[in-house]
């Protein structure tokens, strides 16, 4: 749907090419697209308005970088602002100086609190802690049984309430049980409730006032629409949130609610849930969500990195060679040099959709040096056409580069493989290589 935001912006900004300055006039249409994209991603209306205003302020008067098109430049600003809003660093859970750490999970019905409690218990245990789960949801049928089952699966003890017990009593009992049995984290699963339900909100307030939890985490569904602002504001006002967990991020929701909730609570998004299994909890990375909201994969951060390193000319040449299937070891070497300048290879591979498969194929960073030496030991003819490299030539190359014959063999194999993949990617169109190197597009 909006994988195309970058593309749409480029279309709009096409006429701008080479004019140099972003002005109020020439970015108006582009900002309209940005606004639309954010609204379509479920970012709250008011948040979008303020956001677009900020982007406008920043963009107007900026000079367009040589290696970027104006469209890309605007996307870059939008992306940076998004990350700024989402919070730059990962904020970990705050564990108490004096254990046990008391953590409340709160939120609307069906947002995923119980599953998330199980996931956090596993996460804590993997960090070497000893969690206790407390089932304080006395509203939903079989909620306690659900948590008890999760605890069994994880081999984490669960406190289930006696019939008729009030949530505050249950949580208090959890705390004292934790002290007795040396649990250092107490995870309290509370009942889902509407933020406008006066009784249940009062109950939550009472719990927080009585037990003073170290963390009150709002568990929110990534698919939430405009209402995210209302519920988050009410929960924050009612109990004072200390963090947010966004669930169901493994679907195709854009997750604009992340932005809305963050904007109105100012609290960090600490984790995201990415699956039903209990190990599917990930630390929050603003970069990824920002790209997702804009609908362009992590390709965007690559654009940024590449823009610093790749010279337009080289990139264009490379693209042509790949397209015409004339890619040689010379080009390969050139590309490796560029890749080296762009930062960690692993990191770069991670960012290209579909490139994870390539891991085994790509040399690791230490190997780059070796690869470079091998290619340097070849003759121009050999670099142009690897078919001429017979075993005696291989021996010579190995000797010249201080490597073994099997290193040479491996390189040749990697090269062939890379070539094949590049062909595939470039055939996949602008989604593929064109976005890897910003300069590749126009040609």
């Amino acid at each position: 749907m909006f994988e195309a935001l970058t593309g749409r912006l480029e279309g709009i900004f096409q006429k701008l090419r080479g004019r140099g300055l972003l002005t109020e006039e020439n970015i108006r249409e582009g900002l309209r697209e940005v606004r639309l994209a954010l609204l379509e991603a479920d970012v709250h209306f008011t948040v979008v308005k303020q956001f677009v205003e900020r982007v406008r302020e920043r963009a107007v008067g900026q000079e367009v970088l040589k290696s970027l098109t104006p469209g890309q430049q605007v996307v870059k600003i939008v992306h940076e602002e998004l990350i700024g809003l989402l919070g730059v660093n990962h904020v970990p859970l705050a564990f108490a100086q004096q254990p046990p750490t008391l953590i409340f999970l709160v939120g609307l019905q069906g947002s995923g609190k119980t599953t998330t409690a199980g996931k956090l218990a596993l996460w804590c245990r993997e960090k070497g802690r000893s969690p206790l789960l407390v089932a304080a949801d006395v509203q939903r049928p079989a909620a306690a049984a659900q948590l008890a089952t999760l605890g069994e699966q994880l081999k984490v003890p669960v406190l289930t309430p006696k019939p008729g017990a009030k949530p505050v009593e249950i949580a208090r009992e959890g705390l004292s049980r934790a002290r007795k049995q040396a649990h250092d984290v107490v995870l309290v699963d509370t009942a889902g409730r509407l933020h406008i339900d006066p009784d249940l909100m009062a109950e939550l307030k009472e719990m927080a006032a009585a037990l003073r939890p170290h963390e009150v985490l709002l568990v929110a569904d990534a698919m939430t629409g405009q209402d995210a602002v209302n519920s988050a504001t009410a929960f924050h006002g009612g109990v004072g949130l200390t963090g947010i967990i966004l669930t169901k991020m493994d679907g195709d929701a854009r997750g604009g609610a992340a932005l809305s909730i963050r904007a109105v609570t100012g609290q960090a998004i600490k984790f995201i849930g990415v699956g039903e299994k209990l190990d599917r909890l990930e630390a929050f990375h603003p970069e990824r969500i920002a790209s997702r909201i804009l609908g362009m994969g992590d390709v965007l951060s690559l654009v940024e990195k590449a823009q610093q390193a790749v010279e337009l000319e080289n990139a264009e040449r490379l693209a042509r060679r790949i397209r015409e299937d004339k890619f040689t070891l010379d080009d390969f070497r050139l590309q490796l040099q560029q890749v080296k300048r762009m930062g960690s290879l692993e990191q770069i591979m991670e960012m290209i959709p579909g490139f994870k498969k390539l891991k085994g194929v790509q040399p690791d960073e230490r190997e780059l040096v070796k690869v470079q030496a091998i290619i340097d030991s070849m003759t121009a003819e050999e670099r142009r056409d690897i078919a001429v490299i017979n075993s005696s030539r291989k021996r010579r190359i190995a000797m010249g580069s201080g490597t073994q014959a099997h290193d040479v063999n491996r390189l040749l194999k990697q090269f062939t493989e890379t070539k094949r993949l590049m062909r595939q990617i470039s055939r996949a169109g602008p989604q593929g290589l064109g976005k890897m190197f910003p300069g590749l597009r126009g040609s």
Partner: protein
Amino acid sequence: MALAFLDRWKQGLAKTRQNLQSRLDWLRGVAGRRLDQELLEELEEALILADVGPQTAGNIVARLQEKAAREGIREACDLKEILRRILVEILSQGVPAPGPCPQAPRVIMVVGVNGVGKTTTIGKLAKRWVDEGSAVLLAAGDTFRAAAIEQLEIWGERARAQVVKHQSGADPAAVIYDALQAAKARGSQVVLADTAGRLHTKMNLMEELKKIKRVMGQVVPTAPHEVLLILDATTGQNAVSQVRLFHEAIGVTGLVVTKLDGTAKGGILLRIVDEFRLPVHYVGVGESPDDLREFDPEAFADSIL
């Protein structure tokens, strides 16, 4: 019992009063105002805030403008009435047409993403139909989520409906098979089949639903008679993707929108009804057995405005 009822009635009144109040406020706000760009933008904003979505909101406002021009409307109050009419017109496409009642057992498959209210809705429907004198059977087809079976059993008790279940982790299609056999043997009139929540993007889980559906047809050739997709009113634009993919996979026959007792308006329904022409059978307005209402386009449109 009587007290609880009174309470709810009072709450309902309060809510209606609130709605009326906000409508009056709005009208006062626009009284005497003229149709201008600013006013149109305000209306568009209201639609977007209700999760109608920017594109649909834009289209609706364009239609409004056109209609207003044609009818020579200049007053803001009249404009709002036209907008309301447009919304009702779109939403009315979602009013279910009365169909022939299929031979018993009538089999209803309930699907949706995680946590939208499938099990609760099944409980409410069961309660309603048992109260009307039908023999209802619940099939515990969610064998995946922890304690999902227990949850359905509690609803079965509340509604006085029988429950057919297997163990947690069992093949859901096998449970459904047994449930339908039991329904035939016992002469149940309605079977409500619960399924595990699943994200519409998970291919393998959608395949599982297809299998469940096939198995239903093996026991009762005309089953399932309904495939109800449950949507959560707090969901934003993603609801469209949910409807599309569930529909493509198993052919949805109707919708239920839950959690309309909160502050979310469920405006995405406008786009869904317009695009998919699916009937909206009920709306959920709370967690109690009686918190289920027929879909009413007028009330829905009012709450959006």
